[in-house]
């Protein structure tokens, strides 16, 4: 790999990193704002115009709060937990295709950090590692509530990962590739996957809610039963990392949903107006982010609408409803592919 290419990749990584951190930061603001709008309130409006600097104030507050590590906690693992949660949340963005490519000074710059041919499997691997952050953090706190929250998080994520994986198999069968950029291209050439796979999309969406521990599946941190869940004992920026990781996860899963089911960076009639490649790429990024923001909004919309599941209902939904449905979806897709071609 020549030096220029390495430099470009590093720039891209830094850019994606800062963008996803920025979006996660403002997701916390958006969450509070939207929550209050849904409840006929106006939300934070004191820090700057319309409360725009509220995330900075929140972040600053978390930084300067007292750092408490319980004496009975396993210090190493206690610190490892939130770090791991943050790390895995940030790692997923590497394989998401943010656009096709931009030509700068006669060199093609791909807008994807790593176009690995097993993209979606990589996403799955990293996402399933994400639960280790919560589990280790919850276990190391040496607290009943934290442990219960961690156990809930683990069993919930494992249960829903199965249905999620199965729903994606149908997508893979259609596109014939595990690479996320191939999937986006396929949808650009054919149809958006949500049209071909409505049931699969629904299953994936529900599982995405469960995987990110968002309402109505936010049992690992449900205040009414478990105080704070797995992060009960955490304070200061370690707590901030856990909360922040949740919002990064939300952003990334929105990006994955947009890429898998809503055409990623492709948009209708993208090749019909004779626009230059750079123009198409930039418009593609804009469209992708519009889709992502819609799904982030959907995450919040659902959170402030639906009450939390009971734990047995959660397990029943995962194992007895979603997994069989996903399998039926695979079989049905297979039959259609066999006869239609």
């Amino acid at each position, binding site marked *: 790999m020549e030096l220029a290419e390495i430099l470009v990749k590093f720039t891209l990584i830094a850019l994606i990193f800062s963008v996803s951190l920025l979006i996660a930061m403002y997701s916390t603001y958006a969450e509070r704002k*939207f929550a*209050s*709008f*849904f*409840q*006929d*309130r*106006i939300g934070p*409006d004191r820090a700057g115009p319309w409360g725009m600097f509220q995330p900075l104030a929140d972040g600053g507050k978390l930084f300067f709060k007292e750092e408490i590590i319980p004496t009975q906690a396993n210090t190493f693992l206690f610190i490892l937990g939130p770090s791991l949660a943050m790390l895995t949340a940030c790692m997923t963005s590497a394989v998401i295709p943010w656009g096709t490519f931009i030509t700068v000074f006669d060199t093609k710059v791909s807008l994807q950090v790593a176009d690995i041919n097993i993209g979606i499997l990589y996403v799955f691997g990293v996402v399933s590692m994400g639960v280790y952050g919560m589990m280790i953090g919850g276990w190391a706190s040496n607290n009943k509530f934290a442990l219960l929250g961690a156990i809930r998080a683990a069993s919930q994520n494992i249960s829903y990962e199965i249905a999620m994986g199965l729903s994606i198999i149908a997508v893979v069968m259609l596109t014939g590739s595990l690479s996320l950029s191939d999937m986006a291209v396929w949808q650009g050439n054919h149809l958006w996957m949500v049209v071909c796979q409505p049931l699969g999309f629904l299953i994936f969406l529900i599982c995405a809610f469960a995987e990110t521990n968002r309402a109505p599946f936010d049992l690992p941190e449900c205040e009414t039963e478990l105080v704070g869940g797995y992060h009960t004992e955490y304070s200061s920026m370690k707590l901030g990392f856990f909360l922040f990781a949740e919002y990064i996860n939300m952003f990334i899963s929105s990006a994955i949903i947009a890429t898998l089911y809503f055409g990623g960076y492709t948009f209708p009639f993208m090749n019909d107006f004779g626009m230059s490649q750079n123009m198409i790429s930039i418009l593609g990024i804009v469209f992708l982010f519009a889709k992502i923001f819609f799904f982030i909004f959907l995450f919040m*919309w*659902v959170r*402030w*609408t*639906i009450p939390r599941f009971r734990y047995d209902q959660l397990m029943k939904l995962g194992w007895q409803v979603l997994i069989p449905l996903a399998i039926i979806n695979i079989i049905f897709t297979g039959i259609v592919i066999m006869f239609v071609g």
Partner: protein
Amino acid sequence: MQSLSNRSKQVTDKSMTFSERIYLPAILKGMTVTIKHFFMKKVTIKYPEIKKMFSKTYRGLHVLKKDEQGRERCTACGLCALSCPAEAITMTAEERKPDEKHLYREEKYASVYEINMLRCIYCGLCEEACPKQAIYLTNEEITPADFDRGNFIYGKDKLVEKVHGPNGKVRGGGPLNQDYYHGNAQINSAYQNLELSK
């Protein structure tokens, strides 16, 4: 039995239909309700800048009234202290000197009059008990916070009605022969504006 409210519903235990069992229509219905609220007019009142109007019957902080000639009405009879269920009121009575006739209306007055605002439950029984129309709970100031409990014992310096302002407006209440709930008309018009803006 005859239904009183016409709101009673017959309860059945019929099993749910398919559309009810998949929950999605219900969820979508719920989400349309919430998205409607998203665009609704917000009810928040931005407090320090905009203050909510108090109702006509609001019971605020106490005001020791003065009469039309600016003399204190209280005669230190102690009925308010007696009627107070929280035992928040104490006072010391004193005889009026001949040269104090312009300060106190009755021959006996309260030289010390203290209400412990931490004990007070704002029931308004003192107001009802007072035979001289001297105490009213009409000061619509939110009780200010303090770090010291001692500062919540309000003496005459805080309780007695301030001297009449230039246009007859006073803090904590107007002259008694007018509507003693000060700013009553003001409140009503403000509420009307609020109703109109909805």
